[in-house]
């Protein structure tokens, strides 16, 4: 394990200390618990939006805490959920009377954290809560039947859910309305990833999986879980084509539909490669008659130091376009 750390046991603590130091003007923690992080720019009367999940995905999740996006985040150990108590403390801090929306990935560990927390703050603090579970990873399960809850995992596409819900909340919409917008974004986003190398959880000390020098893992999980296909590494264009085939087929598109595109590096993929991928995405979507309203390219949701990338497509309507255009100022993501 080749990492710039002091000890695996202090990994999260020291990382968080660095975050509070670097972003002192914008972020603070709740009750001295570094793992419960809120914005210093709380907007009174606004619906609070909070999230949470394991560490190891920076800038996800805590990096999006700020103006125009989300209000707080509870982070667990690497790839581990935060605790119920932390979620409770977070919710209390994020509420300013208009209720709190939980947006987090559809993953049992996190569900087991946020649902009990919601129960408790509703009972004890009369805070109204709602939840939207990110479930954009088309490689993690088939589509759910109408009415059934999705079994898909939430991955990088949750960025779009934060972005849209954050804009709606910033416009001072009600909890119901913010939830409706978040759900719309969530229903309209699809993601798929590919890994070239594994990642190493510091306390585990060895890579999450083994992969040959000429192989790739299509559809791997964001913790390095096995994907849907292991195969020889292919040219960038071919990989993009396979991924887009799955992503686009999963949500019906009509000629002229518009999308926002997120090309996301998983941690160790040079930006150059992400732009080579962007170029191909543009070609393919043009062929399919899908118009790109906006591109986001970079590291938005990583798996520590995994090499690889994911593509997320968010289908837009006028309301979501307005949300996409809304300015944002968070430690890791700014849109002017």
């Amino acid at each position, binding site marked *: 394990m080749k990492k710039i750390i002091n000890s695996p046991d202090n990994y999260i603590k020291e990382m968080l200390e660095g975050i509070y130091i670097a972003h002192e003007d914008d972020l603070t923690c709740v009750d001295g618990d570094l793992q419960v992080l809120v914005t210093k720019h709380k907007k009174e009367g606004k619906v609070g939006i909070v999230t949470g999940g394991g560490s190891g995905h920076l800038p996800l999740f805590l990096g999006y805490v700020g103006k125009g996006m989300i209000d707080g985040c509870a982070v*667990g*150990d690497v*790839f*581990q*959920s*935060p*605790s*119920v*108590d932390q979620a409770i403390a977070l919710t209390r801090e994020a509420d300013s009377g208009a209720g709190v929306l939980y947006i987090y990935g559809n*993953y*049992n*560990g996190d569900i*087991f*954290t946020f649902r009990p927390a919601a129960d408790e703050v509703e009972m004890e603090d009369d805070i109204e809560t709602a939840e939207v579970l990110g479930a954009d990873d088309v*490689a*993690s*399960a088939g589509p759910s039947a109408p009415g059934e809850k999705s*079994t898909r*995992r939430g991955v990088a596409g949750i960025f779009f859910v934060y972005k849209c819900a954050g804009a709606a909340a910033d416009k001072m919409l009600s909890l119901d309305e913010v939830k409706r917008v978040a759900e719309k974004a969530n229903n309209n986003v699809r993601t798929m990833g590919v890994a070239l190398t594994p990642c190493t*959880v510091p*306390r*585990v000390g060895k890579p*999450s*999986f083994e992969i040959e020098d000429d192989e790739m893992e299509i*559809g791997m*999980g964001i*913790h*390095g*879980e*096995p*994907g*849907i296909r292991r195969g020889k590494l292919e040219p960038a264009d071919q990989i993009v084509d396979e991924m887009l085939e799955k992503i686009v087929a999963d949500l019906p598109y009509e000629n002229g539909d518009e999308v926002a595109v997120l090309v996301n590096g998983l941690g160790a993929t040079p930006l150059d490669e992400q732009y080579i991928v962007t170029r191909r995405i543009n070609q393919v979507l043009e062929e399919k008659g899908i118009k790109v309203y906006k591109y986001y390219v970079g590291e938005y949701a990583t798996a520590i130091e995994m090499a690889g990338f994911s593509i997320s497509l968010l289908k837009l309507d006028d309301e979501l376009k307005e949300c996409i255009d809304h300015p944002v100022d968070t430690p890791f993501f700014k849109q002017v």
Partner: protein
Amino acid sequence: METSYLITLLKEISDIMAENKEKLIAMDGIVGDGDLGLTMTDGFKAAYDAVADGAVTDAGKLLFAAGKAMANKVPSTMGSLMATGLKQAGKDLKGKETLEDADIAQIFASYEAGVAKLGGAKVGDKTFIDGIHPAVESLKASLDAGDSLVDMAAKAAAAAEEGFKATTTMLAVHGRAATRGEASRSLEDPGAKVASLIMQAFEKSVQ
């Protein structure tokens, strides 16, 4: 039996997880993200540490406190499920200052019920439930048959291990393993292995 026996039990569980840390990491690495060895080791250690001083003598409060400590320490899928199992056992044993064999059997029945309620998994879903459920059934049968505690524990441990082994015939429907469909069938479920380890620890704790 004194309720301090529960401290011994938690110690055995904590120890067996530590011994099997690498094995659980490896097993979870095949079907999932490989963290299970860490969460089970840290979680059961936290559960044990929280009550090790013997200050709490109410069996229910002791188990609940252990569960709460685990929940805060390792809030992952299995971490939360195991914590909830402990807390459910705590709720059901509240007020007991001594333990009959039936109470001991009840602990595991409550444990299973807590996990099932939070996680919603059924027998055959290839989860922890498939390890713990046969053990709980075996404990009931032993109670009816009037087995000694030592025999009860041995039979339950054997049942859990068999349940675990049988997961290689099941299709995963929960968690990441479910992604792999038919390919998941022949793989052992690491959560069920945890159930088997818990029952082995129980067996040791009564020797």
